[in-house]
């Protein structure tokens, strides 16, 4: 045995005694805390059953299904053009982005390619729905740590984007604009110039949030080092989007597999952050929003002329086969595994939604955190309930 000095031994005994005293005075008892299903931090109706020891979470169990609509079953009795109406409602803040991977999968099976102009407009609308979606996150994250002002700015400035989307598609939230073989319609006159003005406003919004929120001492104290996700754990749970890029993983479907979209025509950057905590997830999303405005600006300058619809039959029958297409949606990677048997309706559609995977890490992530941090961690993971429950 190594000899222990008296000093060390006394210190050890003192520490033991202090611990015993604390345990005696503040006797902690197991307690189950129910958060939700109605809670502002849950973006819908998510319930979390947290087992607590004092202020610390021992186990957290998310309870889902309050909004399960069974889209995978419903798609089996709807024709391909009808499916886009349903899947618009998966992530309701960035609806257009939901349609794109499904349409791309159907086009892959039909061996149809959208004309270049349609691909450009698709990419522009895709990035605009990303901005409309993530802008709310940037405002909402501040609300979760106690700052109410940014969310009003977010709602104010999101309106500009929604107006532009409405001008093209006719719908503010559910455009239902994407078609197999192209788009429903062309851009209205004067839209390009207006959208450029809006992109300037959105960049100003990003600057505003950066000065208002990110430098704030309280915000930093509540988010830095909280909810750290190591890269290898994140990969195992299938995290995607800003959640995995904030853990230092340099992976973006837009850059690595831009099938059917015009991302390879643009000069842009994938943002990553090495820390993996709540703060870096916020930081990455802010940079991505700014990057998205730049992508839109460049695409607006280079839209090719031509039709927006390829020649497709009036009644769409998709040849037998299977296709999986994924895109980098506002919330993360979203994909559709479409199985066709040559019918008017899909045989089976597996919807791989981003939030389902992003939330599946929460039991692991919430273990050991303190109660107030549950809210900031969930807010920083950024999920939409419709995207979890489908």
């Amino acid at each position: 045995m190594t000899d222990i000095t008296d000093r060390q031994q006394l210190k050890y005994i003192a520490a033991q005694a202090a611990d015993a005293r604390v345990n005696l005075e503040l006797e902690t008892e197991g307690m189950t805390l129910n958060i939700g299903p109605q809670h502002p931090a849950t973006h819908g109706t998510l319930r979390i059953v947290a087992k607590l020891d004092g202020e610390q979470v021992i186990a957290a169990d998310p309870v889902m299904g309050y909004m399960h609509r069974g889209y995978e079953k419903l798609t089996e009795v709807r024709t391909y053009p009808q499916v886009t109406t349903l899947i618009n409602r998966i992530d309701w803040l960035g609806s257009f982005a939901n349609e794109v991977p499904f349409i791309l999968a159907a086009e892959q099976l039909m061996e149809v390619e959208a004309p270049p102009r349609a691909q450009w407009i698709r990419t522009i609308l895709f990035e605009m729905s990303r901005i409309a979606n993530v802008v709310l996150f940037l405002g909402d994250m501040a609300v979760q740590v106690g700052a109410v002002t940014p969310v009003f700015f977010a709602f104010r400035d999101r309106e500009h984007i929604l107006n532009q989307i409405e001008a093209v598609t006719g719908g503010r939230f559910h455009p239902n604009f994407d078609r197999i073989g192209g788009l429903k319609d062309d851009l209205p006159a004067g839209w390009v110039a207006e959208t450029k003005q809006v992109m300037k406003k959105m960049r100003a919004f990003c600057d505003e949030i950066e000065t208002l929120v990110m430098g704030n001492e309280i915000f930093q104290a509540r988010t830095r080092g909280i909810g750290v996700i190591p890269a290898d754990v994140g990969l195992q749970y299938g995290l995607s989007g800003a959640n995995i890029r904030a853990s230092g993983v340099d992976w973006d479907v837009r850059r690595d597999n831009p099938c059917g979209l015009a991302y390879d025509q643009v000069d842009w950057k994938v943002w990553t952050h090495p820390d993996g905590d709540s703060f870096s997830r916020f930081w990455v999303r802010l940079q991505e929003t700014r990057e998205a405005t730049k992508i839109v600006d460049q695409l607006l300058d280079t839209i090719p002329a031509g039709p927006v619809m390829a020649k497709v039959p009036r009644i769409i029958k998709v040849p037998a086969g299977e296709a999986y297409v994924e895109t980098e949606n506002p919330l993360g990677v979203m994909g559709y595994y479409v199985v066709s048997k040559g019918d008017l309706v899909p045989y089976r559609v597996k919807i791989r939604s981003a939030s389902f995977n992003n939330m599946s890490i929460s039991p692991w992530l919430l273990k050991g955190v303190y109660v107030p941090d549950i809210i900031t961690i969930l807010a920083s993971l950024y999920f939409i309930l419709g995207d979890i429950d489908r």
Partner: protein
Amino acid sequence: MSSTDTPTEETPTEEAATDSAREAMLEQLSGELGDALVGSHLEPGIDLTVRVTAAAWADTAAFLKTGMGFAYFNFLSAIDWMPSPFGRDMDSQVDITLEGTEAKPAEEMTWGLAGGETRFQVFARVNDIVKHRAVTIKADVPEDSLTVPSWVGAYAGSNWHEREAWEMFGINFEGHPGLRHIYLPGEFEGNPLRKDYPLLARRVKPWPGIVDVEAMPGDDDETDSAEAAAGDASTDPADAGSQQ
């Protein structure tokens, strides 16, 4: 791709260039799995699908993760290949007349890519985000036990996906830490995504179907528009009269 008009000189070189990476993947997998790999489908330049036996389902995951660098778990789900006993009954009557067929009884089972032998198949997808490649793995689920080994040991993230597949298809995952309902209430009976589980909304009220086929841009031929114009001229006054 399969059109006969394309020059024959171009297609083979193009395919060979895009193929080689996926062919190498398939070779490595079949070298490791041997007889356990029972089917594969390689779509040049698009995707690779591999079918393994149920017994090798979890070992395949472990090999993909540690041996081949597929660190990213994408999703896991299942397919029911039995044709719906309700046939086209659940489609709208308009769609059936468009097809020119009556509501037909259940046909024989047919399988998708990489083949199949049983009614249920589980399938999953994993990515290698460094080399930017991905593979879809399928396995037949034995009819008697409806059990396959769990992937939770290899990819912790498959936990919720397996709970979903258990709930929706009734497939058991051996070694899963706790198969319980994820979306549906605890007392729910049945497996909704099975093809023989009826969609009650459709049984109660028929669906209108494609009643309004939208005209495609650039699709208005002269004959069409002339007909439409003639039709409008003849029917409009009558319609207006009847409405009044």
